[in-house]
């Protein structure tokens, strides 16, 4: 918290809140006026009978081709012409029409008869959502930006006057604020309580992180990135706003959901800004976060993917991804996506899918306490995948299980940490030991993929053998159980042996080999050529 907690600031905040709420109410009115309305189609007769059938089979360009090849159909049509069809024949003709009309439709759509790729009536039903103004440019109401900019600016000035050292009015600040306000412009899609919850929070986060050290750390892409981040947060939140009111949903639950998603929006903004300004003072972390200025175009993409993942599966990911875990995850994700030569601008990065996949995996694991490992495991996987993205983060399927590193993690958790009868003789692994062991193996796989991976990317038999040999060592050890540190050293030796580099016997006090020289990372061009 940068702004001191004084009575003056409280008054400033209240005054700002009052001004802001007035403008937000008007923005809410504007949004209601321009809100889409689904227009119901008038009722019309959709049933057809033998008369449409006869018309279909006798009109050139419709069904004459079918009729000419079907003598029975011809006989029915002759009778229809003479008005001598029996009731059963009328129904028969009508059903033949239904079948041939469907066939004709699929032929004309260029589809196979049974491929099932027909339009969903629900998709069509949504086409009748009509806006008040067909184009946004025709809407005379002020935009949300125009409504809020004045008040927000005033808020900013108030903060600045009380914290002049934190809030500079020159340099990149005006550019930054402009980008932020533009980002707010998409917020008309957001229902009001959400808008009034989020906007002040985001602005507050921005106001607290605008102290600019020497040099323009915002970088040339800074305003664009901030704009993408602000608008993206609002868009993601809007996508996950549950319907209220008409469905009679519980307002208490709504409030809780709103708080949770708004918390995450704000937290994301703070984390990113903290990473940009290099301010790690309020978040002690083993991974001090420092993004390389706003120049990273992957930054908003990865950040918004994380927010989307949490908002779409809050029951599991909200708790699992605690506040300290976001920075390393963001760093690892940005590096991976930045290194990946095959990522286009659109589409998912695969990171939300990875988080959900790991949540599934850990949820199913007999050792439920491992569920807290999710962020660390995800971070390790992303970090190692960044070493050789083509090999370790295939994006064709967007399925996280397609990543060899995910498959290896699964195998380690399954083989090494299941509850078995031998488990009691193994070290009492803490969650941090589990992460370290997974990290140890992933490190090996990245360094020597030819040993640990099959050509198709699946874990090689050697991995299973190595882990089993290591487990046997731990179980056979006498007397007493090994400590986790000893177990990790033993694993290192076993992995060395499998790779064909047996180490000379060393004293037990030899420090664990936790890091190996990294292979030279391939450049994107090299990776592309290799792929």
């Amino acid at each position, binding site marked *: 918290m940068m702004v001191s907690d004084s009575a003056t600031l409280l008054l400033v905040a*209240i005054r700002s809140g009052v001004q802001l*709420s007035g403008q937000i109410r008007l923005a809410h009115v504007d949004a209601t006026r321009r*809100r889409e309305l689904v227009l119901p*189609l008038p009722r019309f007769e959709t049933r057809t009978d033998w008369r449409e059938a006869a018309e*279909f089979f006798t009109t050139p360009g*419709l069904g004459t081709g079918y009729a000419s090849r079907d003598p029975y159909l011809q006989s029915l049509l002759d009778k229809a012409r003479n008005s001598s069809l029996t009731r059963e024949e009328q129904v028969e003709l009508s059903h033949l029409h239904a079948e041939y009309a469907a066939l004709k439709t699929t032929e004309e759509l260029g589809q196979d008869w049974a491929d099932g*790729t027909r339009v969903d009536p629900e998709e069509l039903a949504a*086409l*009748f959502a009509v806006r008040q103004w067909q184009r946004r440019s025709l809407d005379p109401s002020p935009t949300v930006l125009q409504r809020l900019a004045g008040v927000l600016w005033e808020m900013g000035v108030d903060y600045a006057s009380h914290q002049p050292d934190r809030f500079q009015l020159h340099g990149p600040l005006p550019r930054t604020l402009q980008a932020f306000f533009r980002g707010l412009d998409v917020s008309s899609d957001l229902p009001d309580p959400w808008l009034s919850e989020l906007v002040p929070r985001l602005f507050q986060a921005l106001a607290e992180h605008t102290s600019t050290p020497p040099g323009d750390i915002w970088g040339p892409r800074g305003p664009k990135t901030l704009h993408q981040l602000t608008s993206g947060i609002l868009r993601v939140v809007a996508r996950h706003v549950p319907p209220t009111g008409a469905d009679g949903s519980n307002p208490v639950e709504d409030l809780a959901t709103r708080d949770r998603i708004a918390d995450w929006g704000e937290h994301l903004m703070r984390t990113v800004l903290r990473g940009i300004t290099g301010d790690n003072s309020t978040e002690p972390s083993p991974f001090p976060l420092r993004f390389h200025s706003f120049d990273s175009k992957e930054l908003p993409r990865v950040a918004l993917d994380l927010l989307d993942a949490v908002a779409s599966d809050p029951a599991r990911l909200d708790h699992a991804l605690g506040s300290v875990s976001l920075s390393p995850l963001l760093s690892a994700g940005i590096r991976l996506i930045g290194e990946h030569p095959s990522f286009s601008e659109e589409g998912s990065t695969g990171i939300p899918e990875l988080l959900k996949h790991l949540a599934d995996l850990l949820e199913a694991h007999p050792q439920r306490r491992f569920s807290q490992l999710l962020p660390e495991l995800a971070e390790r996987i992303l970090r190692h995948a960044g070493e050789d993205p083509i090999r370790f983060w295939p994006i064709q399927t967007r399925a996280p299980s397609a990543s060899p590193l995910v498959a290896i993690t699964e195998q380690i958790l399954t083989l090494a940490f299941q509850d078995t009868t031998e488990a009691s003789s193994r070290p009492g692994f803490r969650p941090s030991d589990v992460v370290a062991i997974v990290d140890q193996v992933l490190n090996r796989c990245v360094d020597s993929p030819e040993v640990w991976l099959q050509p198709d990317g699946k874990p090689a038999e050697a991995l299973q053998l190595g882990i089993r040999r290591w487990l046997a060592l731990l179980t056979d050890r006498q007397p007493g159980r090994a400590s986790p540190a000893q177990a990790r050293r033993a694993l290192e030796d076993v992995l060395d042996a499998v790779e064909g580099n047996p180490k000379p016997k060393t004293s037990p006090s030899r420090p664990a080999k936790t890091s190996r020289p990294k292979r030279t990372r391939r450049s994107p061009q090299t990776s592309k050529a290799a792929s």
Partner: protein
Amino acid sequence: MALLQPHLLAIAIAIGALLLTGCQSTNRLREAQSAFSEAARTDNHVLLAALLDRPGSPVQPGSGQPLPGSAGDQDLLSASASRAGYAAALLSLRQLTPRETAQLKSDRLWGTTLTLRALAQWRLGQFEEALRTVHTAEALPGEQLHPRDRTVLEILPALVAIDHAAAWVRTPAWEPNRSNGGLEIWRRRLVSPGLDPRSADDRLNRVLGRTGTEGSMRLYLLMCRLAAYRNFAEIHKTLAGTLPTADDPARREASHVLQDLGDHLRQSGANPTTLELFLAWKNRFALMPVPRPKATAEE
């Protein structure tokens, strides 16, 4: 996460208090909009599923097989759910207090409110009330009426006429010796051009002429015009025993409208499979799309 700071709490309280007093009327309108849109989406889904001949489990008591395009049990359940949605929207608007009404007027939302009320009344079969609401809304000052609402109010009498015809088709009040006269009455109501009062199709066509070539309103209007013709064709079957002939002016115009629908779907950038909508009109109702003669099209 405990991210709420003391002064943010103050902001939240202040905002909350103000919004509670200022947004009630807007929120009530939004609730009504949501309920109506949800009901309309359901209704459209049911109708389009039947148009594409993809009903759920069919219902035709007493007969072995239903006619193609019949609604299924599930669809009928959905239809009753949608009625509840329209009723909820209407109820919500009826409960507006004088203070809320004044607020809506001052926020220039009163035209939107009345339009929604007229639409809900139409869907609930309260045709007379719907037309009265249209009349009231049309008398509002221009600042209260916005483009979509104005268009809806203008076409609502046409929508009422089409629904009225659909209701007649389901339970025809048919007098054999007056069949020809009855058919002409329906022709004037539904599809004849240039009469006073205007037919449903004529009214829709005039609005369509003012609507741009893009947007969902155009698609909606084209579908409404085809619906007007479709109900006329069905009445023709009932009263004259046949579909309108190929040289019937109503059928010729419907062929042009169908061509317009196909062109619109192709040019709108929608998923290509949405063309099935156009093909259903063509193949199921045996209506050939015909491009307009060049001079007419340019006009």
